C-alpha cells in the first residue's frame, strides 16, 4: 500500500558492538536519541512497537517504562532479521491508518556475549518447538545457505570470489564512516584482506559475513501536521515514508521448503515491484539503497532484483564502483549488515536511521550528495521481504 502523509520525525541509535552491554541501556539510549532528534517527549508517542528476538516476551513493554508511564499502546514485533523493519512498518501503518498521530519503532537485541551471560533464545532459538524436536527442517546456518546462492551465481554468471570480496571490502570501508558501526577497521580494507580471512563456507570468508552483535535503533513517525511542527522546531527537512511493503514467499519451480533461511530471490523482485508501484518511483529515482547484505552474494543479486541494473549485470556495477559512496547508486552506505552489523532487532531501523540522515543531508563523511530518495530492504528468515521507500519532501 501507498502511505498517505507519514513522515519520519526522529531517529536514534546505540552503537552496535559485540560487548555485553545491557539491552535496557542500549534501548533507552536509542529511544531517547530519537525523541531528542524529533524534539518531542514520550507523551507525544501514542504507539510503540518494540522489535527484538533475543529477550523475554515481556521485555519490550517493561523497557517502555523507562521512557515513562503514559498509557501508550505497546506491542512486541518479531520477524527474524526483518524484525526492526517490521516494527517500523507497524508504526508507519498505525499513523497512515489514522490510529495514531505519532508512533515509535524501537529495535534492540543483545550481543551473543550478553546472551552467554544472561541466557536468551538466540538466533533461531525455539525453532525445534515447531516440530516438537530438533529437526532436519531447522534453519540452515546462513553462511552455508547463502554460499549455495554464491556458488550457483558463479556457475551461472561467472561471478568471481574477488567480486564478492570487493562488495564486502566496500561495506567494511563504508562502516569506517559510521560511528555506530560494529566493525571499525583502522585502515582501508582490501579485497586481498577479505579473501585471506578464515574460510567459513566456500566461497565465504569470515570478513564476508555479517557482523553479529548487540545494539539498538529507533525511528519515530508522525502525520503531516505534527511533522511540520517538528520541522519548524528542529529545522530538519520533512522525510516522507512513500510506501511500506511486506511479502512472504510465493511458490516457484524448485521451491526449497527444507530449512530455508530466506525464500527464492524472486521474493525481492516481487516486493520491490509492488513498492515502486505504490510509491510512484522507480529504481532510477533512487539515490541510495540499503539491503540485507548478510553475505555479498545477496547484495550482488539485489542490484538486479531491485532493478538497479539488468539481470547478470551486477558484477559490472561492482567493477565500476557504482555502489560505493560517490558512485552512481551507493548501497549499504552505513556499512550494511557486513560492516555496520546485524544485531537483528535493530538492523532494519539502523537502515532507516542512515537513510533519514542521508535524505536530510546530515550523514557527514558518508553523505550521498543530493540524496532525495532512499530504499531500505530486509529479508527475514522463514521468509519475508520488507521494503520501505523514503523521500525528502
Amino acid at each position: 500500500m501507498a502511505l498517505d502523509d507519514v513522515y519520519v520525525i526522529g531517529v536514534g541509535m546505540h552503537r552496535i558492538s559485540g560487548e555485553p552491554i545491557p539491552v535496557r541501556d542500549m534501548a533507552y539510549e536509542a529511544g531517547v536519541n530519537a525523541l531528542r532528534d524529533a524534539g518531542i517527549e514520550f507523551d507525544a508517542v501514542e504507539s510503540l512497537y518494540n522489535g527484538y528476538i533475543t529477550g523475554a516476551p515481556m521485555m519490550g513493554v517493561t523497557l517502555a517504562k523507562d521512557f515513562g508511564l503514559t498509557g501508550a499502546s505497546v506491542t512486541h514485533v518479531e520477524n527474524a532479521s526483518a524484525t526492526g523493519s517490521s516494527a517500523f512498518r507497524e508504526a508507519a501503518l498505525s499513523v497512515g491508518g489514522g490510529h495514531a498521530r505519532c508512533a515509535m519503532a524501537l529495535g534492540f537485541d543483545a550481543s551473543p556475549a550478553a546472551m552467554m551471560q544472561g541466557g536468551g533464545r538466540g538466533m533461531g532459538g525455539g525453532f525445534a518447538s515447531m516440530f516438537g524436536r530438533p529437526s532436519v527442517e531447522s534453519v540452515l546456518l546462513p553462511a552455508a545457505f547463502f554460499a549455495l546462492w554464491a556458488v550457483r551465481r558463479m556457475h551461472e554468471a561467472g561471478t568471481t570470489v574477488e567480486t564478492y570480496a570487493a562488495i564486502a571490502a566496500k561495506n567494511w570501508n563504508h562502516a569506517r564512516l559510521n560511528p555506530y558501526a560494529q566493525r571499525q577497521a583502522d585502515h582501508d580494507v582490501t579485497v586481498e584482506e577479505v579473501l585471506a580471512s578464515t574460510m567459513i563456507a566456500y566461497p565465504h570468508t569470515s570478513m564476508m559475513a555479517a557482523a553479529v552483535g548487540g545494539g539498538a535503533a529507533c525511528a519515530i513517525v508522525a502525520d503531516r501536521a505534527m511533522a511540520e511542527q517538528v520541522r519548524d522546531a528542529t529545522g530538519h527537512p520533512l522525510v516522507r515514508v512513500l510506501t511500506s511493503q511486506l511479502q512472504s514467499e510465493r511458490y516457484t519451480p524448485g521451491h526449497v521448503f527444507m530449512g530455508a533461511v530466506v525464500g527464492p530471490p524472486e521474493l525481492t523482485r516481487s516486493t520491490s515491484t509492488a513498492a515502486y508501484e505504490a510509491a510512484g518511483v522507480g529504481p532510477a529515482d533512487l539515490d541510495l539503497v540499503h539491503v540485507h547484505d548478510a553475505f555479498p552474494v545477496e547484495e550482488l543479486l539485489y542490484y538486479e532484483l531491485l532493478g538497479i541494473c539488468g539481470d547478470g549485470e551486477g558484477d559490472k556495477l561492482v567493477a565500476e564502483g557504482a555502489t560505493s559512496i560517490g558512485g552512481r547508486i551507493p548501497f549499504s552506505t552505513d556499512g550494511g549488515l557486513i560492516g555496520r552489523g546485524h544485531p537483528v532487532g535493530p538492523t532494519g531501523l539502523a537502515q532507516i536511521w542512515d537513510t533519514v540522515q542521508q535524505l536530510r543531508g546530515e550523514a557527514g563523511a558518508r553523505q550521498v550528495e543530493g540524496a532525495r530518495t532512499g530504499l531500505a530492504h530486509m529479508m527475514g528468515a522463514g521468509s519475508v521481504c520488507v521494503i520501505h521507500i523514503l523521500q525528502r519532501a
Partner: protein
Amino acid sequence: MTTKLALEDGYFHLPDAEHPRPRLIGSYSADADEHFFPRRKRCPITFGPVEDRPLSTEGVLYSWTWLQTMKYGTMTGGGEPHGIGQVDLPEGVRVQTRLLGAMGDWEIGMPMVLDLLPVTTDDDGNELCTYCFRAKREGD
C-alpha cells in the same frame, strides 16, 4: 549386525528388500500436478489435498558448499566440516541436503544419488540415520 533406523519419521523410507536405496517421501498434488518435499499438509498452490509419494533416488546437483567452520560473524559452534547442497529431482523438487564427500568432489550439474548418513546410535545400539546425497559412482 547394526540396524539402521530413521532419525526422524516422515522424511524417507529406509531401504528394504524391494528398494535397495532409501527413498524420500514427498507430497503430490493432483490438482497442481506438482511434487513437494518435505511433505506438505496441503497443496500450497491450490490448497487441495496432497498424497504421499516416494521420490526419485537420483537427481542433479543444483548448488553446493563446504561448511568449514560453524562461525557466523563472531558466533561459534561445534560441528565437523561437511558438505551442504541442493539437488534437483526429476519430479521438479529441489532438496536441501547434507552431501557425502569432501571439498572438490562436487560440480554443479553432476548426477547425485540418495544415501543414508549415520548421525548417532540409540540406547539399543541401533544406528540412527538421516538422508543425504553423494556423487553418483560407476555401478550405482
